[in-house]
């Protein structure tokens, strides 16, 4: 009876080397004696034995194993260099049933991908990471890797790696073991048959951790690169034993009994829950179903801290409450206060094509520089409302409607100078086709985070109405 043969976790034919099939369609693209094929085999065997092929997502890295998707009969994603753990995070958080395997080499995981692996491990994402460490950049021609040994000659360290010049080899299993998130961390070696069998066990442990949803599992596998090391396959295994394993301790660092953890996936809301979240106030229906002939493009500008962006969200939400479509696009500098800021709000009866505004139909200028910057952009026949408390200059154009309103002073008189944006917004709504002022009033209790400020904001709307009447 057949005891060991090509595992079913592999495709029947490998079309990388032989796109047309034929005898060569059974061979990998790996060099003679390479460790990748062995690791692939151990994973494929485990996938078959555990019967998880249909729900395994195998993440291929960049490096020699970039073509792993030609071999593994699973869901395959080829990831940007070093980003496999980030991709895996996305997969596991959207597919509860997925078994995520991140297969990475040392250039991928320990150089360009250090941020992704460290943080995925720290979060304890449900994934099995197989880190194939061959202490060299194999694919690109044998350059120094983060894991190259001190003294090791490579294409870029012809006189050997020097601590003072290139730093020492990074011991990734130890790095991962320093974090609290992972449940299983082990380093194994492919230098001999016993090591291969221990690797086999570790691979299966890491995958069964995934089936049982026990958390992040990391297996670092010391692996030969005979071509990169300029050795025969047999010599390379001797070198691993004599040099590599002295530097990279082969051991099980961690195997925690761990409770089954959730996937970290957020519960999807049903339509009712979503509606409840987005409605302006509990139980409130849309105030009106206004129809607009043409879209409104409102630019609200001022200093950071004047509530420009908040005014934008209030306006957009008021429009949505009125049954309209709306977008809100903020633009601001790095300063939270005192920089310049503007919000673009597009309101339409139809879905909004672009949230970017080149020609506003209305400009709400909270300060002087804003008026200077955007006055010329307003469409002919448009509306400009000027905060005359701060803006001393007059609008130069005569083809637009202009309202000068001391909104800062009005807010200040009401004892709440930060409410100038609400006064400005209310004045706009009183002079615009849509949305309705009632829409704004209904969103304020939901969107103003400090509840004690709700009343004063509503009062400011009344003041704006008085001002508008003249």
């Amino acid at each position, binding site marked *: *009876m*057949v*005891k*060991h*043969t*090509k*595992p079913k976790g*592999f495709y029947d034919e*490998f079309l990388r080397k032989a796109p047309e099939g034929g*005898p*060569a369609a*059974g*061979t*990998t693209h*790996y*060099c*003679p*004696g*390479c*460790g*990748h*094929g*062995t690791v*692939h*085999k*151990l994973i*494929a065997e485990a996938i078959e034995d555990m019967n998880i092929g249909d729900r395994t997502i195998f993440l291929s890295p960049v490096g020699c194993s970039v073509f792993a998707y030609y*071999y593994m009969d699973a869901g395959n994603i080829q990831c940007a260099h070093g980003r496999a753990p980030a991709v895996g995070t996305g997969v596991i958080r959207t597919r509860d049933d997925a078994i995520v395997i991140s297969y990475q080499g040392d250039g991928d995981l320990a150089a360009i991908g250090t941020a992704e692996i460290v943080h995925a491990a720290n979060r304890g994402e449900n994934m099995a990471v197989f880190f194939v460490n061959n202490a060299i950049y194999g694919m690109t021609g044998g350059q120094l890797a983060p894991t190259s040994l001190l003294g090791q000659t490579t294409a870029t360290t012809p006189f050997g790696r020097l601590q003072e010049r290139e730093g020492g080899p990074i011991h990734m299993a130890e790095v991962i073991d320093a974090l609290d998130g992972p449940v299983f961390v082990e380093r194994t070696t*492919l230098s*001999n*048959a016993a090591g*291969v*069998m221990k690797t*086999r066990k570790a691979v299966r442990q890491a995958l069964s951790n995934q089936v049982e949803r026990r958390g992040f599992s990391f297996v670092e596998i010391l692996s030969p690169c*005979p071509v990169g090391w300029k050795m*025969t*396959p*047999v010599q390379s*295994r001797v070198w691993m034993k004599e040099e590599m394993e002295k530097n990279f301790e082969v051991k099980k660092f961690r195997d925690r009994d761990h409770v089954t953890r959730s996937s970290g996936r957020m519960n999807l809301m049903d339509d009712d829950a979503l509606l409840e979240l987005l409605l302006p106030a509990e139980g409130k229906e849309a105030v009106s179903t206004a129809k607009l002939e043409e879209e409104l493009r409102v630019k609200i500008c001022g200093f950071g801290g004047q509530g420009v962006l908040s005014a934008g969200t209030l306006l957009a939400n008021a429009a949505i409450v009125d049954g309209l479509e709306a977008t809100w696009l903020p633009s601001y500098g790095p300063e939270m206060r005192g920089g310049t800021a503007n919000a673009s709000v597009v309101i339409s009866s139809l879905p909004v094509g672009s949230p970017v505004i080149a020609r506003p139909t209305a400009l709400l200028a909270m300060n002087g520089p804003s008026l200077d910057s955007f006055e010329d952009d307003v469409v002919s026949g448009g509306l400009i409302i000027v905060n005359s408390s701060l803006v001393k200059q007059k609008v130069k154009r005569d083809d637009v409607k202009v309202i000068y309103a001391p909104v800062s002073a009005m807010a200040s008189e009401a004892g709440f100078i930060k409410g100038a944006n609400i006064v400005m917004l209310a004045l706009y709504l009183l002079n615009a086709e849509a949305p309705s002022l009632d829409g704004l009033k209904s969103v304020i209790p939901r969107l103003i985070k400090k509840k004690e400020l709700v009343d004063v904001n509503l009062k400011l709307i009344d003041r704006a109405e008085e001002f508008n009447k003249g």
Partner: protein
Amino acid sequence: MGVIVAENHVEVNADLCKSCRVCVETCPKHCLEIGSGINALGYQAVRFDSEECTACGMCFYVCPEPGVLTVIKGADK
């Protein structure tokens, strides 16, 4: 190839072997050796020639190629 015999043995798909010799070095019973023929990939494939095989599977696991070796366990004698 494909002949079913009662004894433990290893079937070699010689077309796929890259002649790395790792199985030759690994086999505790020295059942495998590099043959003299050259396959389509340009390598001298490994060949099985022994009656000592225990079907332990070591050659299968250390072999870097997925499809070269198949280990057959014979019927109990």
